[in-house]
């Protein structure tokens, strides 16, 4: 299985080669983690500004407001509001979730969990991080241009995103940034796919990989195939903005020779629907593993879960039309897309049942990673079920572009991925940094976040069902939405609660890094996968000797195990009677 000899390289000595231009997958993973947490903070602050505006229209945003918007006395101005929701979406999806789940944990876990010394192409790995980093810089520069940042929504539909709708440089920079990020992520994806195929430790078949790796593997495949689609769309949009081409200008094609704005929607969602699975698949994988590990029993139907992930990956490429039911699509097509969308619920339901089957009669340990994993089971179930109403044409026509959509995709993409990501941080903290985080604070963080996010997104769904549109600066100027102020205020207070809970996390994280107690035990959670066979934190060469894998990743609670031991390492032969 190993295709070539992996040599142990000398540890890098200078600061630059160790921390900045590093080719070590673990350090690159940490770089991605820092970048993701930084952008998570910025995106979260933007979310709070959006929520504040919706709950208390015409009131100054506390503390930061007077500094950011001095000309209005601290009130978020309408044009800034559009920039805020655009940048919030873009930052959270492309610069927070992608770096944390795919960049950080993808990089950190793939070699450790498959028993390799590094990625196949370390240089490409470094390039992937730095391209992503600079694309983040390009995006943020947009905020400081004269007309402000991009303001056409994270989907950047033309004509809003053409020069007519958004004449400033912010949108151009946004498009460039997304293109650059696409290049960076594609480089990463090529690396991940090749590494997983070729560097698995001897004896490790595909189904012996932890489900985390399965999730990241599927994500990498979707990334490699579909990010270039968005890249092409971004290039055309850039040409429209810079060189006066007319791809996305509205008008009849034959008579005056202009383009078709709906084309961008097609291109965007051909990429965009796989993108939501790109974000959620690593979280699914992590959660499937965590549930099994903390229930102290093998993952129920692990092979089926992996196969369901493959099925969903394939199906996710065929359903993008359900984002476009209201674009005068032919009814025949809408029904086709609706049926295909409904088909996704079959594999989803299977592996959701597998999650529950894993929990069933397990000796569950309620450590913080497990709490987060179980939180994902709840919020993802809710988010997935509400998706059915949006995938059905008849209900979608009513719910389209309301807060119901916002609530739905935040449940699936934000809540699930965030909780999964936090669970992963708490869980792999000893392996990444050699310290444990405070368990009590972690539990507070979990419960406050969990209550907060359910308040936010459940409230959003109720609002949307009542007909509140998304992306409105002040919805309460409309007669029928006047009664929604109290519920909006509730959602905003929930958001503030959730924001406050993240302060606990940041404190806990920083405190653990600076003053945390060093973990002596290489395996504090008693888990059998390969990364727990090596010391904490992982040495730069990972494995002194490349391990030989003899059993699956969740061999726990085996009654044949000797007394006092409820798990076995993947390097040990499966214990039989």
């Amino acid at each position: 299985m190993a295709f070539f000899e992996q040599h142990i390289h000398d540890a890098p000595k200078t600061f630059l080669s160790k921390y900045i231009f590093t080719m070590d997958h673990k350090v690159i993973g940490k770089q991605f983690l820092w970048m993701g947490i930084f952008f998570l903070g910025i995106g979260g602050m933007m979310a709070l500004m959006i929520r504040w505006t919706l709950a208390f229209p015409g009131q100054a945003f506390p503390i930061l407001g007077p500094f950011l918007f001095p000309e209005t006395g601290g009130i978020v101005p309408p044009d800034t509001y559009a920039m805020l929701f655009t940048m919030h979406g873009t930052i959270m999806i492309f610069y927070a979730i992608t770096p944390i789940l795919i960049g950080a944990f993808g990089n950190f876990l793939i070699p450790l969990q498959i028993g390799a010394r590094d990625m196949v192409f370390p240089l490409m790995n470094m390039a992937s991080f730095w391209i992503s980093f600079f694309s983040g810089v390009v995006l943020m520069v947009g905020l400081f241009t004269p007309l402000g940042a991009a303001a056409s929504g994270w989907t950047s539909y033309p004509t809003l995103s053409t020069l007519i709708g958004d004449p400033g440089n912010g949108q151009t920079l946004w498009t460039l940034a997304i293109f650059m990020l696409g290049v960076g992520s594609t480089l990463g994806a090529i690396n991940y796919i090749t590494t997983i195929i070729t560097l698995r430790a001897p004896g490790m078949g595909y189904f012996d990989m932890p489900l985390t790796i399965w999730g990241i593997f599927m994500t990498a495949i979707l990334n490699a195939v579909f990010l270039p689609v968005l890249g092409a769309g971004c290039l055309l949009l850039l040409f429209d903005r810079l060189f006066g081409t007319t791809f996305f200008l509205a008008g009849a094609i034959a008579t005056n020779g202009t383009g078709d704005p709906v084309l961008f929607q097609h291109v965007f969602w051909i990429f965009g629907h796989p993108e939501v699975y790109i974000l959620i698949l690593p979280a699914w994988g992590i959660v499937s593993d965590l549930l099994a590990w903390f229930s102290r029993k093998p993952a129920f139907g692990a092979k089926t879960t992996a196969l369901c992930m493959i099925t969903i990956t394939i199906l996710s490429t065929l359903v993008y039309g359900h984002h476009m039911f209201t674009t005068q699509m032919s009814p025949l097509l809408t029904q086709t897309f609706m049926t295909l969308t409904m088909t996704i619920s079959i594999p989803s339901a299977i592996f959701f049942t597998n999650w529950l089957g894993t929990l069933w009669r397990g000796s569950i340990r309620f450590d913080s990673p497990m709490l987060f994993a179980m939180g994902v089971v709840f919020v993802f179930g809710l988010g997935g079920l509400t998706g059915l109403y949006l995938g059905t044409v008849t209900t979608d026509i009513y719910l389209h572009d309301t807060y119901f959509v916002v609530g739905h995709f935040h449940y699936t993409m934000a809540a699930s991925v965030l909780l999964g990501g936090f669970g992963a941080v708490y869980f792999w903290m000893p392996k990444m940094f050699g310290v444990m985080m405070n368990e009590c604070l972690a539990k507070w963080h979990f419960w406050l976040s969990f209550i907060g996010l359910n308040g936010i997104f459940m409230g959003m769904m109720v609002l949307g069902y009542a007909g509140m549109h998304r992306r409105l600066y002040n919805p309460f100027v409309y007669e029928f939405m006047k009664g929604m102020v109290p519920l909006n205020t509730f959602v905003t207070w929930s958001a503030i609660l959730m924001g406050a809970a993240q302060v606990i996390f940041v404190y806990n994280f920083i405190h653990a890094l600076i003053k945390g107690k060093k973990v002596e035990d290489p395996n504090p959670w008693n888990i059998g996968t390969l990364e727990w066979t090596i010391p904490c934190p992982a040495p730069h060469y990972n494995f002194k000797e490349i391990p030989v894998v003899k059993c699956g990743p969740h061999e726990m609670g085996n009654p044949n195990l000797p007394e006092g031991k409820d798990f076995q390492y993947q390097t040990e032969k499966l214990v039989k009677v």
Partner: protein
Amino acid sequence: MMTQKVGKIESGEQVVNSIAMLVTIISFSMLFATLFLSFFLYRLSATQWPPMNLDRIDHLFPAISSILIISSSWFYEVFKKNLDRSPNNARYSFLLCLGLGLAFIISQFLFWNDLKEVGIFASSGIYGSLVYSFTWIHVGHMAMGIFTLLYLLPSVMREDFKKRIRIVNIGKFWHFLAVVWLMMYLLLFVI
């Protein structure tokens, strides 16, 4: 053919690089496939093509470009065949391949000048947009291809062909660009 030439020690590394190259080519294909999708969308929804009563574009430069890029690809194959047989011939065919690639880029610039003289600009409607953008993006990739060839150049001049995997993979990318150009030629200028 190549697998026989490459020794056993290298073959593992070759598999790794082939997988990575395959994924890379798939990524690039999706980029161009999206462009072709947009072409078909405009082409099929237009009642008349080219739109706005424009005349068809003169074939001369695109046809020359096609010949140049095909022969460049062909010389790359000649280069690969001669690696062991006659290193000197290999070197010459590599240089020919590189020269023809550069000539292709020049022919594209001439083609754009030609278009401008007829009065078709990137900003003059969807037809101009399609022709310019597609050729720009392709030439951008051709420039990348040229860089990879230049990267190979020093070792070729030394007649040092030990990095077989690199030669094979750069060849794959180079041929891919030729195929993309031929598809563009068919779509934009022939049908």
